[in-house]
């Protein structure tokens, strides 16, 4: 009997075109949009050889020219791509945006830029250090005239690196948060399904509910069957979205796919029970309740960084409590900590609170639905 009820509800849900669109197609569409829009953002942060022009009066003996040509950003990537031309030509190149800056003069170089920016700062820092070398040599010679014979010039020209990247750290790829929060949002979107299930079973909410209440079936049994059906259909949408993100868009979820899967399922369950609890306990018209639920969902997604990644950090920094009660953020943070951290402490904390919320909402819905009878509606 239970299986029959479950099957019937499954069919019913699959025929709800609107819900199917929002759960199955919409997240995939949004993920595609994110992918196209944001995939180049990280590349934009990456270093690219800076284009400059150089106008030198003294072509014979030009140490600066040599230094510019030899400067390297990282091994194998040169710092500058230089065009040699006169000032007039360089000015044209600068204003057409083909170069970031041009340098005039070799002995006392002057820098011309169009605006203040990071590339311009790097060029200036480079020229500064070039000038500073001679100042250093001068000061040392004043105090130690013998230095020149001991290889001072070579030492000044030598450039040693003192900073090393800490090993074993994951790449802080900020774009991932968009995808994580989208997946989290899709999980919590199950609340719309939970909401509908309560509408369909409560006699004061819909005609179908009234009809069900006079039928000989046990209400709680039917409700559980319906919720299981909703959970099944909704889980399908999550698996589809995850598969799309992981296999098609190659989003990096770290190495623990099992944990990711558990997070998705608990997230979906939390969503279902959240929707049910909201529908049971809020005593308004259906439209108003739907609007409130939507605000909770969208607000949760916004605060966990789906529209603006930094929002997630701002919330965690300024209102720490909010990050622990916002289910969308809990799921996003669980994905994030699985990817970024080597230990599982933070992940376990997130997932425990999330599970706690699911149980809390479940109990609330149960208390609200059980033994509700009506003499008249």
């Amino acid at each position, binding site marked *: 009997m239970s299986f029959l009820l479950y099957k019937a509800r499954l069919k019913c849900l699959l025929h709800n075109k609107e819900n199917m669109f929002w759960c199955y197609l919409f997240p995939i569409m949004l993920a595609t949009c994110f992918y196209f829009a944001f995939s180049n953002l990280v590349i934009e942060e990456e270093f690219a050889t800076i284009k400059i022009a150089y106008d030198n009066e003294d072509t014979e003996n030009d140490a600066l020219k040599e230094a510019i040509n030899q400067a390297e950003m990282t091994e194998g990537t040169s710092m500058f791509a230089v065009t040699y031309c006169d000032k007039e030509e360089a000015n044209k190149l600068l204003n057409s945006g083909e170069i970031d800056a041009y340098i005039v003069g070799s002995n006392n170089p002057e820098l011309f830029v169009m605006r203040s920016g990071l590339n311009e700062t790097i060029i200036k820092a480079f020229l500064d250090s070039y000038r500073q070398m001679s100042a250093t040599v001068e000061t040392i010679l004043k105090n130690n005239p013998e230095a020149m014979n001991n290889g001072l010039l070579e030492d000044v020209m030598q450039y040693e690196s003192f900073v090393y990247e800490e090993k074993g750290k994951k*790449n802080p790829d900020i774009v991932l948060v968009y995808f994580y929060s989208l997946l989290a949002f899709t999980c919590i979107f199950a609340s719309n399904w939970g909401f509908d299930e309560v509408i369909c079973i409560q006699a004061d909410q819909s005609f179908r509910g009234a009809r069900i209440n006079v039928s000989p079936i046990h209400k709680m049994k039917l409700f559980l069957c319906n919720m299981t059906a909703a959970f099944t259909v909704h889980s399908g949408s999550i698996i589809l979205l995850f598969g799309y993100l992981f296999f098609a868009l190659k989003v990096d979820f770290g190495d623990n796919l099992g944990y990711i899967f558990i997070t998705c399922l608990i997230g979906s369950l939390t969503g279902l029970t959240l929707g049910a609890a909201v529908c049971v306990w809020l005593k308004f018209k259906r439209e108003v309740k739907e609007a409130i639920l939507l605000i909770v969902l969208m607000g949760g997604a916004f605060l966990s960084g789906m529209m603006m990644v930094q929002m997630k950090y701002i919330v965690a920094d300024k209102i720490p409590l909010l990050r622990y009660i916002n289910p969308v953020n809990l799921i996003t943070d669980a994905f994030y900590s699985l990817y970024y951290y080597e230990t599982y402490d933070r992940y376990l904390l997130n997932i425990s609170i999330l599970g706690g919320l699911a149980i809390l909402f479940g109990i609330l819905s149960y208390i609200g639905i059980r033994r509700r009878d009506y003499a008249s509606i």
Partner: protein
Amino acid sequence: MQAFKAYFRILKKQLPAILIYCALFVGITAISASNQKGNGSVQFNLTKVPIAIDNNDTENEFIEGFLQYVEKYADFVELKDSDEARSDALFFREVEYIITIPEGFTEEFLAGGEVSLMKQSIPDSTVAISVDRAVNNYLNTAQTYLKYMPEISEKELNKFVLQNLSNETKVSIDRYQKEEKENTNSYYQFFFNTLAYVIVCCFIIGVSTVMLSFSNIDIRRRNLVTPISNRKINLQLILANFIFVMGFLLLFLFAGYLSNPDKGINTNTILFWVNIFTFALTVLSLSYLIGITVKSKKAISALSTSVSLGLAFISGAFVPQEFLGESVLKVASFTPTYWYVRANDAIAALTSFRWDDIYEILGFMAIQIGFAAAIISIALVVSKRKSQQAY
């Protein structure tokens, strides 16, 4: 003017949804606008990178001098003292570089030993390279001093190094346009690009829902038996649509003017307005087409969200076109939003207004009009077919 009045009566019911979008948009724009940095200044400033220092060494003069130099290229951000807080801050770009100074660093360095600093940064990023240079520059210079003047005191060392490193190159800003007009334009560029999303979303919700009500077969039959001719009804609806669109646009032009910190109106601003007007006509025709084709209100909400978001993302309304892939832009060029955003970007960059400069922008607007004409033609065919089916 019955049809005209009926249009606005139905529209009134959609008003809350539309107003929510408006308020949301203005709010988000206001937040984002505060992050918009115009770089039209006529003075050169070094771009500083937000960094965090985790100093495990003692606080001493050498470290102080070192940090004093690094501060020229970096803004120090105070973070909570835990690895997690630092890693989070780096991930979300609160800081873009973290230096860890190990215990005993100063002592070892001054004694000429092998030392190194640990960093956490965004790999291969321009910001990391900028900070790397500053750090290495200071330490290399200090090392040279230590080698040739071994008796030098910490204080002296700092003094010499900072003195040498204060030797700076002269930098001049050299561009044709020296006024600070860029700020007004960059704000409007951002504002109008994002507006592309809101306009598409609101017009489809507003116009399509009303048109859907009029294209209901029973209503159409009812309208056919009225003493008002079909032509008149259509004209009134067109007028009503037009007024809705214009009213909506004016509201936003006004909001844009108020929220713009510069409050300037120049030739660029007027071109922005003309461009958004052209785009509004295109979106109006699209909404009209959707309104007469779809069958239910639920489909309209699904369509308005998908179409507006989809167009906005691939055409560069949210993320600038320069950051989008070539193939994405190729696909986007088959949509009017792409040409609208392109025109906006071109207008923002415009510094002189000769025919040769404006010519290209007018071309982009003409393409949008072309889209409008094409969509309207399709709508006319659909509507003709529908009217034939009605009998």
